[in-house]
């Protein structure tokens, strides 16, 4: 299999991350692979602010060790790989989920020695047997998407927990949404 090179994809990811939803088109719930051939544009860290010039400048901040926020990151996922979220009774990857998975794919490109586990989780609304099957579709769907972005399948392990290991113990719709996720654990 063709090895993934994170350097070439990174610029697109930054652009994708900053752009609005409208800037990216997608065909409904279909899985759309992100194009890989994008020219490298900027890898230079931003210039250090003048105020810190008194002491030696710190090393360039490691993007992967900084706390992250926004879609994919919350109290149960602080990085480096963000989680993706699903609609009720669905394993389809939304536009936001696809954007985040592209970032995760880039991380795999920068960290060729790392592998990860993808856990499929569901909210407590569905019936529990069905949710194990649904959780498996969520985790394997995420894995397949990453493999299409060039991550070697041997670096991704999947498991479904259905509704058995909820993150958010609440009962409201926000808690339900928090629990419908594919959760990444770096190994």
């Amino acid at each position, binding site marked *: 299999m063709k090895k993934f090179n994170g350097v070439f994809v990174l610029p697109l990811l930054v652009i994708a991350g900053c752009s609005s939803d409208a800037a990216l088109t997608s065909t409904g719930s279909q899985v759309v692979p992100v194009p890989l051939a994008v020219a490298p544009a900027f890898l230079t860290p931003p210039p250090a602010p003048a105020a810190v010039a008194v002491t030696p400048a710190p090393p360039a901040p490691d993007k992967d060790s900084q706390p992250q926020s926004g879609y994919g990151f919350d109290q149960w996922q602080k990085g480096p790989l963000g989680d993706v979220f699903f609609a009720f009774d669905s394993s389809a990857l939304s536009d936001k989920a696809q954007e985040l998975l592209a970032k995760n794919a880039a991380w795999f490109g920068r960290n060729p020695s790392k592998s990860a586990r993808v856990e499929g989780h569901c909210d407590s609304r*569905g*019936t529990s*047997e*069905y949710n*194990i*099957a649904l959780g*498996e*579709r969520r985790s394997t769907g995420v894995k397949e998407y990453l493999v299409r972005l060039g991550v070697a399948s041997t670096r991704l392990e999947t498991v479904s927990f259905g509704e*058995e290991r909820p993150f958010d113990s609440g009962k409201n719709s926000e808690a339900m949404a928090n629990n419908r996720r594919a959760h990444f654990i770096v190994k």
Partner: protein
Amino acid sequence: MQLTRHIIAAIFVFCCFFVTPMHLVAAPEEEYIIISKTGSDSIALALNQLDVKGVGSGKVANSLDVIIRDALDFPGLFTILSSQVTVEEKSGINFSALGSIQAEVYARGAVASTAGNVTLDMKVYSVGTAKLLFSKTYVGKENKLRTIGHAFCADLVEHLTGSRSVFGSKIVFVSNSTGFKEIYQCDFDGKNVEQLTNSRSISLTPALSPDGKYLAYTDYSTGRPVLYIRNLLNGKTASSGKSGISIDPAWRNGRELATTLSFEGDQEIYLLKIDGSIYRRLTKSRGIDLSPTFSPDGNKMAYVSERNGQPQIFIQELLSDEARRVTFNGDYNTQPSWSPAGDKIAYTTCENSGEFNIFTVGADGTGLRQLTAQSGQNESPSWSPDGEMVVFTSNRDGKKRLYTMSSTGKSQRALFRMNGEQAQPFWSLFRK
């Protein structure tokens, strides 16, 4: 006067019994009596207090009395008349007195207990014909009084209805009372709760084989959901040994069970042998196929399929592999359970309100009936071996617990009290 005895008669409500020709063919030497009167859906049973034979038998007789009354009350088959009349007289049984309180069946018995050995002599009469229906002696140890009492109850119900009873059957279920989800079993009436697994991970979806010898369940001990088939006699355990998931088993008979496996990529239902090896793949549709349950003859399988985008229940002929959809109400129908008589399928619907409720539908897709409503989330129906009751889970009192109800949704009540939450009950056909 010494022959005079007060009886406490009792009225039970029960659902209509039909003695089908099949029962008569199965046991042509047996005489079955249809008890329910026209316009009535109950058997009125007069149950005399047990006679005590010999010094020291009184305590045992009292215990057996309670056991038999509680057990006969459980399935909701009978109705107890609350008035007291004099039944036993010098001249014999006063059937007209029994008739005056609308009793249809009269049962009396005697208990003797010597050195831990108990003998229960029971006689059952038809009030209308003033005839003895059956007479039987039950013998056992004093520490097995429930077994002795329930053996009589089973005979009584089978005599009156020609159907298998619940007495002696087991219910397996999941509970998290230790902090981990483990498999437990209890008697049909919720007594004698016993923990069967101690994996300290997540154990789910238990199913007992029809002969009661094997327990199939899914367990996360290895970090992923794996099906195990455990011989309950010697503890030997087999597994499916496939990658992906292997969940939600159902027995087709004492030698074969079906489960969902995903090692070929899609989630399909396979028939396995007791050693976990694959016998045959049963489904071939894209998407989730899950939760098999078999018709009593094993020739048809009902299951959940997501082939149309949402989970619905289908029935497939095992010979032809032809499948047809049987549920059309709602967008989310799961957890089918095929009735022991073969005529109905109980299942769980997610209603538009978001409430989960239990319905039954004929195996031909007609006769939809709602069994639970506006009482929290109700899930996981499983039929009693006589087909008269359904065990299910409900969180109507906050925590998820096991409940029973009649096959039409009447007499809904909690099965027992236990720490933690209980889920996924499965009522076994097995009887001691």
